[in-house]
């Protein structure tokens, strides 16, 4: 069943199109990869889904419900949460309080304090951050901050998790850790839609992959289909970046 769908999504920035009539579908319970050279419009697509920007044309639907022009906080309550490529934890707050923001405010209902703190504890354990719970987020290194981004998003108890380059820039050990966490998240029934530059990771994890280039969708399919697609190869080689 399709859980998240975009139709004809178009976004202009100062007259230049960052996204041009993009259609996509994300199957419930799957891991869907979103790849493309830098500046292809991947993050912009996430910003449209999470309600930070409104598209100039097109719609996004969640479980068939039109969410195109809903406020970000409403979209979060419906069950779509995300991480930021530029890593934006609440730097002045402790790791625990970062996750509590997601738990207290990101969910549809309200949890009592004790339950919320238990929940935060188990999420931090899941993301291997328990030992850092009382640290301020600005005391964490990059790998830990990325895991905190994901932990905070998991705090909202999402149905769909949008991951914007949570692996890029990590060392091999950290990469393995977070890949395992992504799979485990999917196994809990959360649908994952992930942008990633690290091909090994995204091809290894994804059921399906969508390829954007210059704001347009140029290919879509299983990892095998996409990697052998001549258009995709050309886009990447032309970009001198693989």
């Amino acid at each position: 069943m399709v859980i998240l769908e975009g139709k004809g999504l178009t976004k202009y920035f100062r007259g230049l199109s960052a996204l041009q009539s993009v259609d996509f579908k994300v199957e419930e319970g799957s891991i869907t990869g979103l790849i493309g050279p830098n500046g292809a419009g991947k993050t912009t697509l996430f910003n449209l889904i999470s309600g930070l920007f409104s598209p100039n044309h097109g719609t996004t639907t969640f479980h068939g419900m039109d969410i195109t022009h809903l406020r970000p906080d409403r979209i979060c309550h419906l069950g779509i949460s995300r991480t930021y490529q530029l890593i934006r934890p609440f730097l002045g707050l402790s790791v625990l309080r970062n996750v509590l923001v997601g738990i207290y405010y990101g969910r549809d209902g309200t949890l009592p304090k004790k339950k919320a703190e238990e929940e935060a504890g188990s999420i931090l354990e899941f993301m291997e951050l328990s030992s850092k719970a009382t640290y301020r987020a600005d005391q964490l290194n990059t790998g830990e901050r990325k895991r905190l981004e994901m932990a905070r998003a998991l705090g909202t108890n999402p149905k769909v998790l949008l991951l914007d380059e949570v692996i890029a820039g990590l060392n091999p050990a950290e990469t393995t850790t977070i890949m395992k966490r992504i799979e485990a998240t999917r196994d809990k029934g959360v649908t994952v839609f992930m942008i990633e530059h690290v091909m090994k990771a995204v091809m290894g994890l994804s059921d399906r992959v969508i390829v954007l280039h210059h704001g347009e969708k140029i290919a879509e399919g299983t990892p095998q289909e996409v990697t052998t697609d001549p258009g995709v190869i050309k886009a990447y080689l032309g970009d001198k970046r693989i």
Partner: protein
Amino acid sequence: MKKIHIVIFIGLILFILLPHFTPRYMTAFLLLLFMHIVIAESYDIVGGYLGYINMGHSAFFGIGAYTFAILLNGNFGFFLSSLAAILVGVLFAALISFPFFRLRGAYFSLATFGLIRLFELLAFNLRSLTGGSSGIMIKAEYRLTLAYYFTLGLCVLTVGLIFLLTRSRLGLAWTAIREDEEVAQTFGINTLKHKCVALMISASFASLMGAFYTWYIIFINPKVVFGLEIALVPISMAMLGGSGALIGPIVGAFFITIVEEILWTKVPYFHLAAYGIAIVLVGLFMPGGIVRLKWLRKPLMRLGLLED
């Protein structure tokens, strides 16, 4: 009970007994100190926790003062007039939050600063209501000791409630907004609503303080309540002590009120300089305020008086 609780308890008893043993000027000085704490601490809800520098916080103080004076003279009694002072202040906060909170950073600060001037002008010109430049003399006697207790009570209430609020869910939303408003919104926080609520709570304390202060000094005019002297209190004290930490504004209020008092007796009219000097000192030597100085941070955190 922790050590700190005992200290607070003994301190309270001391402050309650004090007016019976000390000279009147000491009582008056402490009243002023408590008032400064109320204003600086309530300012800090928005300035320190929400992260919006509200330069117009004293407008609420002035609104409370005038509402109280006008109603008291209309024979509504102390209680109703105080209540109305809070209501008008809070209502006004709600009203301005929608246009003002669309502004960010310096634009927000500048707009709020303009508010004070606006109200000063209104107070000057709505003569039939405010008495214009000659101000309002309220129908009450000068009662220092009682005013002292009211101010002390409000001070304890303000600090206590802010302590609880900043540790609650509401406080979590405020600090999240301060750290990154856009991210806060994508994590389910209705940012506009939370900013509005923060300003309303912040305004309630300041406007009630305005009412009590009017009751204490009996006479108000536009300069007294909308002047620079009160306008500089919240920012300079919160920033000197340490914004966004419960004891910060208290420490700042303590230092500035003392320096001001000394200057006032030695070189009259120079006391305003204390505010300016405080702001410059903070900017140059201690961006986090006194309580975040390297050598003070650790001991304060150990005592549980500082969180971050």
